[in-house]
């Protein structure tokens, strides 16, 4: 294997790698926001997002080459198909699964496994349908911003990305639909009392989340021939961004984190070979979760077997009220059970 040459650290290179980082980071951001909405609002570990992402890229490329359609209609058609598949899997697979298991948290793993199955099947299907690379001939003009070389396509993709992310963030923040979505995330059983159907909101979230992915996928497909596993790493990066940001964060926070990951990856090529670029992100995820785990360990108990104070096995009731009943009453636990799937 040829020895890797590191990029020399110069101002020009730094500017160029920063620009590259913004471009890749933006494509991460779309997936991170889309996937993050689905995991944080609908609580579905929808790993098949990756496969649907790739499918949308292939569809758009095929539509453009075969039918000679322009970029935007191809994007729309591909995204609509992707949304149908994503909403269909929520409707026909995840939601029935959660209903059967009866509890959102216990259903986590079945949903994850079912989604893995769908993902595997869709990616293999792509390989069968498109055994050869599908390339689009896309009119691209070079753009020079100071020392930085970019193309009209990448500039457009970055702008579109952030317009889309801020649009989604604005919808979630300021519109009636956004309020309903947030209401369902915060307190699904109470939202039912005001006539909101959580299941409908989840489907809307799947649709929005998938559409964001569609934009990213179709732009990527315009830059280079899509591959069936192109979404896998992106979703894994999205998991990193979404969980570091936390469930309550706004879409743009997750987006900015994902952008930062793209920049870190790009800058890392000053110091290590580019074959390590995904390692950088996975290491961030590992360190983040491992830190959380190590902080959860009761070291005193491990060392002595008899620490000063107890175990923290029961999660303390959330102090939602000034003088709440810290005692989880029978009704409360019952409501938690009945909150799902109604």
């Amino acid at each position, binding site marked *: 294997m040829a020895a890797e040459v590191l990029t020399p650290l110069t101002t020009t290179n730094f500017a160029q790698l920063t620009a590259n980082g913004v471009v890749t980071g933006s494509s991460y951001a779309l997936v991170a926001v889309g996937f993050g909405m689905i995991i944080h609002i609908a609580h579905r570990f929808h790993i098949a997002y990756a496969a649907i992402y790739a499918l949308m890229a292939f569809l758009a490329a095929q539509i453009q080459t075969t039918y000679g359609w322009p970029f935007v209609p191809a994007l729309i058609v591909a995204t609509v198909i992707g949304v149908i598949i994503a909403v269909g899997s929520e409707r026909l697979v995840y939601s029935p699964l959660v209903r059967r298991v009866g509890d959102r948290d216990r259903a986590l793993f079945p949903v994850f496994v079912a989604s893995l199955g769908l993902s595997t099947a869709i990616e293999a299907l792509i390989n069968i349908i498109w055994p050869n690379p599908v390339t689009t001939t896309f009119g691209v003009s070079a753009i020079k911003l100071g020392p930085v070389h970019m193309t009209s396509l990448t500039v457009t993709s970055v702008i579109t990305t952030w317009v889309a992310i801020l649009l989604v963030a604005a919808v979630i923040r300021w519109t009636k639909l956004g309020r309903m979505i947030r209401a369902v995330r915060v307190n699904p059983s109470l939202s039912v009392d005001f*006539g909101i159907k959580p299941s409908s909101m989840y489907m809307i979230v799947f649709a929005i989340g998938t559409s964001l992915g569609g934009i990213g996928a179709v732009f990527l497909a315009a830059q280079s021939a899509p591959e069936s596993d192109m979404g896998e790493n992106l979703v894994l990066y999205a998991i990193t961004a979404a969980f570091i940001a936390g469930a309550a964060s706004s879409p743009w926070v997750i987006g900015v984190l994902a952008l930062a990951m793209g920049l870190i990856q790009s800058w890392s090529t000053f110091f290590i070979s580019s074959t390590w670029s995904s390692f950088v992100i996975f290491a961030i995820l590992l360190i983040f979760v491992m830190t959380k785990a190590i902080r959860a360990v009761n070291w005193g108990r491990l060392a002595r077997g008899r620490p000063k104070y107890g175990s923290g096995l029961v999660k303390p009731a959330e102090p939602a009220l000034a003088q709440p009943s810290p005692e989880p*009453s*029978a009704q409360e636990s019952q409501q938690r059970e009945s909150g799902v799937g109604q």
Partner: protein
Amino acid sequence: MTTETTGPGETLLDVSGLQAGYGPKRVIFGVDFNVRKGEVVGIIGHNGAGKTTTLHSVFGTHRCESGKVVYGGTDITGRSAKKNVRDGMTMVRAERFTFGELTVKENLQLAGMSVKSSADREARLEKVFELLPILKERLRQQASKFSGGQQRLLSVGMALLADPKLIILDEPSLGIAPGLTERIFDTVKELVHDQGISVLLVEQNIPQLLRIVDRVYVIRSGRVILEETVDQMRERDQYWDLF
């Protein structure tokens, strides 16, 4: 339990033989009661007696296993909460009754969604602000930053916004200061008086409950063991044997 025909008005809610539970656990075993128009009906009983389950089964947020719920003359057994809300039922839960991460304004906007005309909605909002001025002063505040009592007021305000014919109130005094309980109960009383709303109320604080109810049902271990008017209840010297 037979329905008395004398009273303030015709029957709004009539529940008979209601049974419900969780999985193999049966919580209520055939509960019968009714609420008339413009009437405040209280349900009391020991913790775990099935009061909350009864309310949720009526409102459509819990599955009834058998029995019948008639509301405004139509059989609504097993109907979704969404439809019940549209028909003028609202519920104030005993716990987790606000959207904590949302602002007061957003909470109120969500609650007012079932009211179609915006003029109507504005009018109702004004009325709520009049009753509960604190909500108007703190519109931009996150609901979770409110104290428990203030959140309780907000939840009552939210219930009023939806243009209710029947308000179902689950333990409004739970976890709040006595003074606030009185405020809430005064507000409810005023509403009943002004607008002819009916109220179905579960409450542990019996003296407060007796201030506003017309009739009381006592539930023990999932069954109605007693129905009394407020005057009969007041005559009792103690309530231990009801629990």
